[in-house]
Structures are given as structure tokens and as C-alpha cells.
């Protein structure tokens, strides 16, 4: 789903959690990985699903659903790990001259989020992004940057920098 407009276009990577569509700013996403064999870490916070080994690196996996107060998502064939860039990787991006997100709040290490399934890369103009409607659950509000209406489907744009601190 792409929309063109005269305003600068923003790109988001969309994914699904419990039939709802969410999105991250594509500039902060490093990779989407189908590997979901997560090692449990006993005694860790419930929002932390565990750790996963990606090419020798130990990645921390968080569960957005739990952060929002729902039950932990089951792992299926469709599940994916959406991995964020580290602050170093984001800084490299900013040195290239483009407009970068506030890198201070991200992590030095790669963090991944477990999602039910992955959607397309969505390009939309900034103008159609609205602030979060108040009827959404209170718990989720601090993590929502805004919502966008894409041909009838609502995509909730999330603040990754807030999510990674929810533990």
C-alpha cells in the first residue's frame, strides 16, 4: 500500500499483533528475522520473552503484547522478530546526512520484538498521521506515536524507544 503526496513521505514497516496492524519507522529497524527459537530467561520481567541467537549475536526479545498488558503471543510459523538498530548503527545513518531519530534513547545492543506476522513496507505522507485517539487502552498510550488510516485499515505507529525501556 503506497500513497503519494506532496508532503515528505515517511516509510514504516508494518506488522500484525493479534489481528491489529502496527508500524515502526523504517529508519530504526535493522532486520526482520524468521528465527523465533527463543531461550527463556527465568526471573526476567514478563515483558522480556527471552534471548535468541542470531548469527552468533545474542539478541534480547521483548513482547509488545505483554507491554500492552495482554497475554504473551504464541510463536507460530508466521512469527517474526523485528530487530531494531543499535545507537551506533543509527548514528552512522545520521552521519550520512539524513534526518535521524533521537538516538539517545535507543540501545547499544540489538533488541528484537516478537510479532505475529509481518506486513509490507508502507510509504505514507506525514500529513495523514494523527495523534493517538483517546479510546485506546491507557497502558498503550505512552508507546504510541500516532495512527494512520490506510485505506480503511488503521496502523498504529509505535514509539520503539519507549518500548525498549518497558521492563
Amino acid at each position, binding site marked *: 500500500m503506497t500513497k503519494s503526496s506532496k508532503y515528505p513521505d515517511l516509510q514504516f514497516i508494518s506488522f500484525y499483533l493479534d489481528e491489529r496492524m502496527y508500524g515502526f519507522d523504517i529508519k530504526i529497524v535493522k532486520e526482520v528475522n524468521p528465527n523465533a527459537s527463543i*531461550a*527463556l530467561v*527465568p*526471573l*526476567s520481567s514478563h515483558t*522480556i520473552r527471552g534471548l535468541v541467537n542470531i548469527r552468533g549475536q*545474542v539478541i534480547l526479545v*521483548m513482547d509488545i503484547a505483554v507491554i500492552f498488558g495482554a497475554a504473551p503471543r504464541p510463536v507460530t510459523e508466521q512469527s517474526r522478530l523485528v530487530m531494531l538498530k543499535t545507537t551506533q548503527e543509527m548514528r552512522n545513518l545520521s552521519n550520512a546526512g539524513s534526518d535521524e531519530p533521537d538516538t539517545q534513547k535507543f540501545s547499544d545492543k540489538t533488541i528484537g520484538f516478537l510479532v505475529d506476522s509481518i506486513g509490507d513496507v508502507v510509504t505514507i505522507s506525514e500529513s495523514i498521521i494523527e495523534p493517538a485517539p483517546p479510546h485506546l487502552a491507557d497502558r498503550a498510550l505512552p508507546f504510541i506515536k500516532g495512527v494512520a488510516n490506510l485505506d480503511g485499515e488503521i496502523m498504529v505507529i509505535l514509539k520503539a524507544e519507549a518500548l525498549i525501556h518497558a*521492563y
Partner: protein
Amino acid sequence: MNKQTIDQELLSEFVTEATEHLSTSEEDILTLEAGGSAVNNKTVNRLFRSVHTIKGASGFLDLHKIERLSHSLENIVGLIRSGKLIPSGAISEILLKGVDKVKALVENVHDDTIEIDDEIAACERCFDPGNDSPRPPATVSTDLPAPFVAEPIAFFDMTRYDLAGAIAESRYVFACTIDLIQECVQKKRSLTSMLEEMKAIGEIWDVKKNTDEKGNPITDGDGRSLCSFLICTIIDNPDILAEGLELRPLNMVVYTPKKLAVLSQKGRPVMQEDEAADVESTKRDSGEKVRSHESAVDSSTGTAKPVIEQTVRISVALLDKLMNMASELVLVRNQNTQALAAEDLQLLSITNQQLNIVTSELQNSIMQTRMQPVGNVFNKFTRIVRDLAKKTGKEVDIVIEGSEVELDKSIIETINDPLTHLIRNSIDHGIESPQERQKKKKSLTGKVCLSAFHRAGQVNIQIVDDGKGINPAVLKQVALKKKIITKAQADAMSDRDSFNLIFEPGFSTAAAVTEVSGRGVGMDVVKTSIQKLGGAIDIISKVDQGTTMTIMLPLTLAIMPALIVSVESVCFAIPQTNIIEVVWIYGERVFQSIKMVDNSEVYALRGRLLPLLRLSKVLQIEKTYQEEPMAEIKLDRRIQGPDRRQNELEGHDRVRMGPLDRRQSVSNNLYIIILRHGNEKFGLIVDTLVDTEEIVVKPLHEQLKKCKAYAGTTVMGDGRIAMILDIMALSDIGELHITDIHKQSLHAKSSLEDRQTMILFDIGGEEQFVIPLCLITRVEEIHTGQLQKINNRDYFNFREKIIPIIRIEQGVTELKSSYDDCRYIIIPKGQNPIGIMVAHIQDTLDVLCKIDSTTIYHKGIFGSQLINGKITLFLDSIAVIEAVEPGWFLDKDTGRGKGKNILCIDDSVFYQKLITSYLHSGAMEVTVASNGQEALDVLSKQSFDGVVCDLEMPIMDGFEFAEHFRANPKFSKIPLLAISAGDENVLHGRSLDCGFDDFKPKSNLEGLLETITNLFVKKRLFP
């Protein structure tokens, strides 16, 4: 590459080199100062070269400030080298301050704001030739306040330390001017010897003289050669001083301590402090902020400065080794490829082996590149100790050993701060002032010994001081006051444990808490830092004698051997350094060997009680089980540990359980990993052992640090992730109270000891017998043919000796027996081996002894008990042997015991019987009592020749009994023997202290007779 980058590289190189030079320079200056007038040529030359090199390089790179300052320093060193200047305390101070400033300049090469004027001025004052009369120098430092400037004392160089020291110790300072021609030339003594004499009286802070290169005084217009000096001494009378030095000063100004104090408070201190002093510097009186020079970002200007990267020095030999191994690796890789292509499994396995070897070697060598000698850190302490000693007015010597011991670079960096803190503590709170030391008849100079050595696979760093030690009582008081421990804990705490109170957060016995650069380092932070490195810290101290602090560190952080264990198929890694041993228990022993003491589980390991933790419980993992493979996995709701039903089982100890009973299945097994916890041990229960692996430690994610149980993560060989357990943290989470357990263990012991392992046997008749395993040396299976009959007695060849064999029915004639061709010999313990023939050995079992000695009683039988549903007789082997071979246990020595009346005190009927048996065989009479109280009652009615007493008993234990016993003068001549199932090493000494004459462990009761008779002899000879 443009000029800028070239310069940047050169600059980095300069910084690296200069830093090295500066650290050796510091050492050299200290060496020179310690040497005094005996200037070591090598040292001074090296110092000169270093400073000279820095000067040159900085000039080339347009670093003017560094150039100027090093130039000044070079001049001073030059004077020292040519003998014109003696590296006194004052001079050294100037040099050190200068070196510090150069260091600061070097580390902040881009920073233009650092000023060097003061140091330059100080240096110049040093080699400014003498003046006619004391007057303020032309280049007056703008910091000197008016009072000082007007004073003659300002003409000299002195340090804040010296000044503060003089004030603190109430010394007088004299500024004198003398005529060298008169004092030296005419009196025919050299300047040096004169200075030596002065040194004997006090401390020379500064000397300004007018001499030429050869040290000869240069005369001025009046034919005098003026020399002015500043001397600090306890002498208060100028005339006495002059006489003592045999001088006739032209001018003398006296500064009393009071005047000095007044002067120094009126304005800013004499010498401007180094603002960017290095991190290890001591507390400043004025509490100046120490600027951290770690960040590359200059906060005042806000721009990011280029980060000067850290480098490491590696020996070329090591690099060559690495190169060789890399090429070997390539070779093996090629072979491997070939083998795979040819699908040659055998060749593949060979190359795999080679791969293993090369990889390990490569790994080791690369690790070594990160290893740095601890000397890098240690050598800095010489300066710190010197400064701190001066500051506190104490005399301290530091001895450094083991500087060549190597540690991982990151460990060395992290250990710096804790070590500094500990050394400062030693000097601050440990070493006493010279006056105090003199009162205690100690040497005036305190000694701090900093050493590093390898032990048990770890590197130990020890700080030993001979100061005033730590008083455990004081510690406990403070801890009580701060509510860190309860009164009960304080009472129960041993002195050794109380030293660890220092590490509790919020604890500080010092009246004023000393801070290090505002970082708030306390002993608890020291301990946490060390623990984070995977190390441990221990303190031992003796009041007035000194304190020893030992830090144990792993050799490296990056890769370590670990044991992988799993609980409910979640894997964890336990670093091998923590592991002492692994115990495997299965089946029923799982329930029998694990006891409960005060709500905690314990395991009896070789006589000692070990507190246990279940990993599943600590990590809150739910336990599941399957009845059969592929069956449904259910939650395990059994009460972990000793089955509650066990109480009902007593008396039916071995209710035969079928193999299907889950309680008996082998899958019901546990592994107990015995772990090191400081100086103690504890056991960790896990489900399975997976493997031992050398794991690469990956640092823990920030979000997981909350869990506390983990020290890191690792990826195992199969790609799975395992959490690395933090053993210390685990014991905290599991609320392990190790010291409590040990207290309990003594009491718990008594409830354990009545469990005896017995051999169940019969002699072919209907009866079933048991004999305790602890009394048996060996059980042999024999055939009738092996027996030899001589004189109607059977003999058997045992260990090259012929031993007589007796049959129980010979001693207990009512018994019927029937032996097959194949039978057994039980050989009890004893000096002279003898064998007891039995027909069948049925089993070995753990029996809770509840001997019924009334229903069936016979000589040769202790009593009976229902075991396995059958009445079982306890064989009194000693009595039986006695019956068949009278006098067997009696040899000529023990005959002395004949007829003596002994009181045997033990709460266990079993041991009562056993000991009675022993003593009877020695022809002694025995009366028994079950506890101390009962014994005292019996003693009041009867008299005895000797007493054998168990230590662990209810109502009144052995120690208490001994106290009462010995308190009564009637009993003082009676020998008192202690017996116990506990730890001999601990209890032997203690029992002797309490009044026992000797100690015998219950596990080794043979020789009991001999011990008692010996006691009789001793008591008679030495009442």
C-alpha cells in the same frame, strides 16, 4: 593522507610515548627522593632522558606549553645530575608536580586552558642562584598572598604538604642565611656534609646557594658566598639550632607552628595545586574538584574531541606465535576441505582433532595479548602511599611483590579503583601514627605489603598491613547500631564472619567518610566491583597486629570453562572456578540424604552438613514430570525434599517399594553441584548435567541485570543460549544462611548419628542379624576349602596373616546355624584381626536405631529391632569374640584397666551398647547415662574411675557437662574422655579447652580401651 591526518597520527604516538615516559619518570623521582644525596646515576640519567625526549617531541609538534615545562624540569634534573642539587622532599615535590602537569597537558593535548605558570615559577626558584639577602623573587607568583610575600619564607620553595605537616606536628621552621665561605671553606667542611648534619636535626625544605659546576662557592662582592636554607625541625630555639649545626648564621627568621598556621590560612596556599591531578590523589583540604580527564568531550566547549584510542603493548614473540598459528590454521582448513571433498571420514576426524588443538592454542595466545602485568597498576601506589603518608603524618613503607603477574587488561582497569580504596584504607585507618606505634612497641614505620600471586587457578592480590587491625567487637557494635544485623546474629557470628560486615552497604566505622574524587567509593562498592569481575574478597585481621585483605580474581573474563546444567530443559552455565565437586544421588537416597534443618534443605556430605539450594526454586521454574516417555507432562506437586511421609516411615525404614514406584526410579535422580561461596560451600540441585564447555562470555543485557542471578550469557556449541549463573547472587536470592547452617550442623548431627548403615546377615538359622558397617573392616566371600582347621579351630588366610574364625553360635550357644559351602567372613575392626563366620549376607541398609534391649537380651546381642518386618538382632561382635576367645581384646597394656568403673554418657542407645561392649572386653565395669544431666545425677550417687562422654546430647551436652564436671574438685582427678561423630579437627581442640582429657572420634572407636587406660596412667602421674 593530508597533513592533518599525519599530525593526528603523530600526536597519538606522542601521547602514547609521553605517557609511558612520564610514568617511569614518576617512579624515578620517587627513587631519587628515597635515595637522598646518594643519587643513583642510572635513575637520574633515565629521568633526564625521558624529560628531554618529551621536550624535543613536544617542540616538534608545536606543543609549546609542554615544551616549556619539560624544559624547566629538564633543567632541574640536570642540576641533580651534576650534583648541584639534592633531590630533597621539596625538590621532588616540585618535580612531581611538574610531571603531573605535563601528564595533564599530554592527556588533553587539545586543551589550551591548562596553565603552567606556577610550575614554571616553582622550577625557576629552584635553580635561581642565591641572593644577597632574602627578598621576594622578581617573578612573584601572583597567588602568594600579601602576608607571605612579605615574609622571607616566601623566598623558598616549599610544598603544601610540608607546611601542613609542620603545622600538624608543631614543628618550627627556620629561614637562615649563612656565608658558605665562612661555614664551609674556612671550617673545611663540604656543603654536602653540612647539609647532612642539618638533615640529622630536621628536614631541609630548600636550599639556595651560589655555587659553580664543581660545587664550589662563588663569592660575591663582599667575599661572601651566601646560602639560604629553610629547615623544619622540632627544635624551637634558634640559638640551639645554630649551635647544633655549628653555624653562625647571618640571618635567621623563626616561624613557630602557630605563625605558620596563621600565615597559611590568611591566603591561598603557597603552591598552586594541580587542578588536573590524577585520579589516585588524596583528599584535598580545600576540597577542590578533581577534573576527570577520561572523557574526550570537553564539556566547557561542548565539541567532541577525537577520542585517543587505547592501545596495548604486545611482545613481538607473541605476535610471531600468532602468525604461526594462523598459518597452521590455514593448513588444517585446507586439509579439512580435502577430506570433506573425498568424503573420507577418518581423515576428517584427524583434521578435526588438529583443528581442536590449533584453535585452543590460538585462543590461548590471543588471550595472552590482553594480559598485562599488574605492575602497571601497582607501581602507581608507591606515589599514592608516599603522598598519603605525608598527608596523614604517618610513616609508611610500601613493599610491592609480584608485579610481573599478568591479568586481563579489562580486569586491571577495573581493579584500580578498589585497590586504591583498600590501600588508602590501610594507611588511613590501619597504620597508626608513629607515636601510637611507639607506644605499642612497634617499629615507627608502618609497612604495607601489596603482592600478587597465582593460587588455585586464580590470581590473588593481597594487601597486608601491620597496623592496628580490625576489632570484631567494634564492627558488631556498629552493625548493630546501624541495624545491619540483629543481636542474635551478632552473638552467633564468628569473628571471621564479622570482618565481612565491613562490606555491608551503609557501614563505615570511620568518623569522617573519605571520598575518592566524589565517586563515593565505599567498601561495599569495592566488593561489588570485585564480584562483578567474578572475583571475591576476604579480610583477616588481628587487633594491633594488622590486617590482611585478599582479592581473588579469575585470569580472564572473556572465555572460561564452565559446566552446563539444565533444569526443565533450560540450560545454564556454571563457571568451573566456582565448582568444587558434583554429587549424584538417585532413588530413595534422594529423600534420605537430604534433610531439613530449620526450613532449609541440607545434605550430609562426608560428615558435614551442606546447605542446599534448588535451582528450580531459586529461578522459579516449575518442575514437571512424565510418568513414562511420551506421556503427558504434568506439574510436579510433590513436596520437594524429604517426603513428609517420612515420619511415618520411621521404624519401617525399608518398606519395600516396587520398581514402578516413582520414588524409587532412577529417573528420580538429582545432581548436586557443590559450589564455592567465599570460604564456605553450598550445594545447588539441578536436573541434569549437559556438558563441560569452554564458553565465550557475552555481557549481560541491561534489561536482564535486574534478575541478579546471572553474570552473563553464552552461546553453546549447539547454538542454544545459556545463562551464566552468578553463584554469589544465587545464594543471596535463595537466602542461604551458611553460618546458621553450621551452627545447626552440630545439633543436627545428633539426630543423624542414630542412623547407622548396617549389614544384614544370617547364620543359616531363622534369625536375622545386623552389624554396623562402621565396625567392619571387610567382608570376604569364602569356600569351606579355604578354611584351615588347626586344633579344632578354623583359620583363614587374610592379607598374608592367618586369622582365627569364630562362629556366632559358639558364643551365643542357643543359636542354630547352617552353612553352605559358600559362606562369608565378617572381619571387624581391631588391632588383631579375627573373622566372624556368617552364612548369608542379605543386604546393606540405613537403619534408624531404635534398639529394644529388653525383649530379647542375651550376651552377644545388643538388642533387637523390627527391620523389614522381621525381628532383627544387633550383634555385639565384641561380646561374641570375647565369649569365644576370652581375653582377645586384652593385651598386656589394657590389662591395667581391669576392674575400673567407667561412666558412659551418650544419648544413643546404640553407642551406649557399643562402648559398654568395648569396655567390658577390657574387663571394666560400665554404667550408662543418656545425657549430661543424668550423668551428674549418677555421679552424685556413685563414684567412677573414668568418664566417657558424648559431645552432642540433648538437655545438657558434653561441653556443659565437662564444665560442671571440672568445676567439682571431687572429680578433678578423674579422666574425662570426649567422643563425637562431629569434625575431629574442630572438636578436638575445643574439648581439650573445656576440660576433657582427650578426644576420640566415633568413627574410629578402636583403640578406645587403650586411650582410656592411657588416661588412667596419665592422671595418676600428672593429676
